[in-house]
């Protein structure tokens, strides 16, 4: 007796209705808005793909995309490398107060990003703790307004991201490593492998799945950064720290170019999607 094909769909319906109402419909509307020239109120003009064409020649938009790609290094790559090494060390050594350290390193994930941004703005201030420490240790020549110098602003914002994401990555890695049977390490040690060899031969391949998850999460965080930039630099100095999400906000609410803002949002969505499909594919293929 063949079951009706409708039944499983009915089970899916409630969840799908919520998903459609709060995710698909807004996405569809954003895609639609991106084809119009509209100020958010009053009449709108259909302009087809003109908003996208304009973006191609828009220096601020290109700067935003470029900055977002740089931020991936700070949000995803550095936390991954550091998180892996930290986790490997924590797993090996019998560190006293392990729970305490784990909590401290994970703490940035729990604090609201606005609070994080305000705190770091103080740290980076020309009269802030960072410069005071540099002065105290005789590196007064390095002091500067970290967020006000175009050469350091993006890296300074990025480093906040590193600080925030590191705990998440480390925790993921630790949980992955805890699944590795202790016999494997014992066998490797009997074969004469040192800590480094052990790391590359056993630990790293075993946490490949966790690495993929960590990369997906942190890359998404990097590409959709908004709060940190909004609260620390407003995209400045000049355009040196503007990011796509900030451009969306700025275009929609300050310039009242809802069409252009939606176009940026759609491009950003596609970019996040494409990069993460790539990461997932690589992660799955090799495992």
């Amino acid at each position, binding site marked *: 007796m063949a079951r009706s094909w409708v039944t499983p769909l009915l089970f899916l319906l409630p969840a799908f209705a919520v998903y459609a109402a709060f995710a698909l419909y807004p996405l569809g509307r954003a*895609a639609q808005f991106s084809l119009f020239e509209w100020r958010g109120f009053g009449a709108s003009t259909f302009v087809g793909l003109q908003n996208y064409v304009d973006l191609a020649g828009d220096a601020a938009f290109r700067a935003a995309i470029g900055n977002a790609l740089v931020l991936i290094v700070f949000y995803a790559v550095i936390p991954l490398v550091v998180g892996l090494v930290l986790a490997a060390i924590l797993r090996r050594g019998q560190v006293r107060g392990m729970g305490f350290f784990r909590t401290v390193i994970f703490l940035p994930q729990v604090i609201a990003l606005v609070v994080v941004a305000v705190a770091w703005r103080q740290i980076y201030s020309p009269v802030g703790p960072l410069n005071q420490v540099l002065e105290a240790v005789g590196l007064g020549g390095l002091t500067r307004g970290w967020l006000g110098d175009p050469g350091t602003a993006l890296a300074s914002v990025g480093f906040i991201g590193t600080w925030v994401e590191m705990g998440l990555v480390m925790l993921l890695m630790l949980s992955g490593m805890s699944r590795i049977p202790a016999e494997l390490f014992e066998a490797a040690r009997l074969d004469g492998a040192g800590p480094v060899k052990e790391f590359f031969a056993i630990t790293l391949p075993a946490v490949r799945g966790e690495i993929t998850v960590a990369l997906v999460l942190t890359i998404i965080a990097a590409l959709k950064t908004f709060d940190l930039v909004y609260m*620390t630099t407003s995209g*400045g100095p000049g355009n040196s720290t503007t990011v796509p999400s900030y451009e969306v906000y700025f275009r929609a609410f300050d310039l009242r170019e809802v069409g252009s803002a939606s176009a940026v949002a759609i491009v950003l969505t596609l970019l996040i999607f494409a990069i993460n499909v790539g990461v997932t594919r690589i992660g799955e293929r090799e495992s």
Partner: protein
Amino acid sequence: MRRRHFLGTSAALGGLGLLAACAPGSDGGGGDASDGGGPAAGDVETDIASLGDVTLTVWDQEVRGAQNDAIEALITAFQEKYPNVTVDRQSQSFDDLQQQTGLALSGNDVPDVLQVNNARGDMGAYVADQLLTDLTGYAEAYGWEDRFSDSVLAKMRYSADGVTFGEGALYGLAQTGEICGIYYSQKKLDELGLEAPATWDELFALVDAAKEAGEQPIMLGNLDQWPALHVFGPLQANFVPAEEIVTLGMGNAGADWTSEQNVAALTQLAEWGTSGAMGDSPNGLAYDDAWPLYTKGTGVLLIGGSWLAPDMEAVMGEDLRFMAPPPGADGAVATTGGTGIPFSIPAAAENKDVAAAYIDFLTSDEAMQLIADNGGMPVNRTAELAPESGVNKDVYEAFDAVSTDGTLLPYLDYATPSFADTAGATLQEVIGGQTEPAAAADALQEDYAAFTEGS
């Protein structure tokens, strides 16, 4: 495979949504109900008591301590004067109000009185869409043109098509005033053996002298990008005729950012920025960190808005003084300043006559007294209401001098919807030395020209 199928379904559904939804903004609104034209003076009903029971809906953003106290007191007094009127007041922060005003005005259920920011991106856009009432008739009936100085009223005037800013019909009325000027520490000037500068040359000399004495001449925190506009505005008036700055600042056609005088003004700002006259890293310091530093003794001068006076005075007391900038290029004093957020009447408002009476009451002589009593700066009668002593005495006198005898220059970011960003980023680069003054002038001109030629 399953995932691809799911994605396909999602895309198809999204597509359906696209087809089903109507074009943004096409579902009509209250804006159609009226053409934004206001009544003639003869048609204005000023006898509010005769109108029967009325509930007046008011949206404002006067939420901070002293402002809130003043408005509450005024509303109570207004209701006592007209027992048949009940004021339904809804207040929220400036940002919140500003972001929903567009949607609110295009709907059918609009407030009777609403605070609308003067800038082109806000008031200008609503005027162009005929969402606000022309108040010219009310101004005549209530004598607002005698009550306010022209320089102040100009900040709330637009042509009916929203293209010209600063002339034309009146679309709002403000209660309070504000002005950018120069704060100085009397103690520090005494130590340097100098007087408050009477000319710009004296001011430049003061900056040099302070620097030689090892002081930071000017305090600026420009991480937020916009604070530099409040320094550049007064400085620009030393190089560029006020009339030209007004044209540039209001985004009207006919002026040029790349003129020799504008480049000279930008060059002076660059000189201050790169020589360290404004500290080692003004672009790295936040606005709200800068003025507390000033109150603790860093910096001889601080160029900024009058709204900082009460908080800074709380720390510095009598040491803190304020002055309007020295006379500008054309001999008269001119500086950036303007009004608080004006009160406007939406085109679709139900009780326009009562709304106008309310706005009249908010800007009356008694209201000015009440605002002054609560520590704010009233837009009218400023000189006579000035306190006996303290920095607010300086502030009141400076505002009065500029608004009656000089020119209140518009905030430069009024000019075009994108000018806040363009000017903020450009001035930051000028101060940081990353952009040459001439190139900065080109960038500003590009934004200004694109707007004035496009409209």
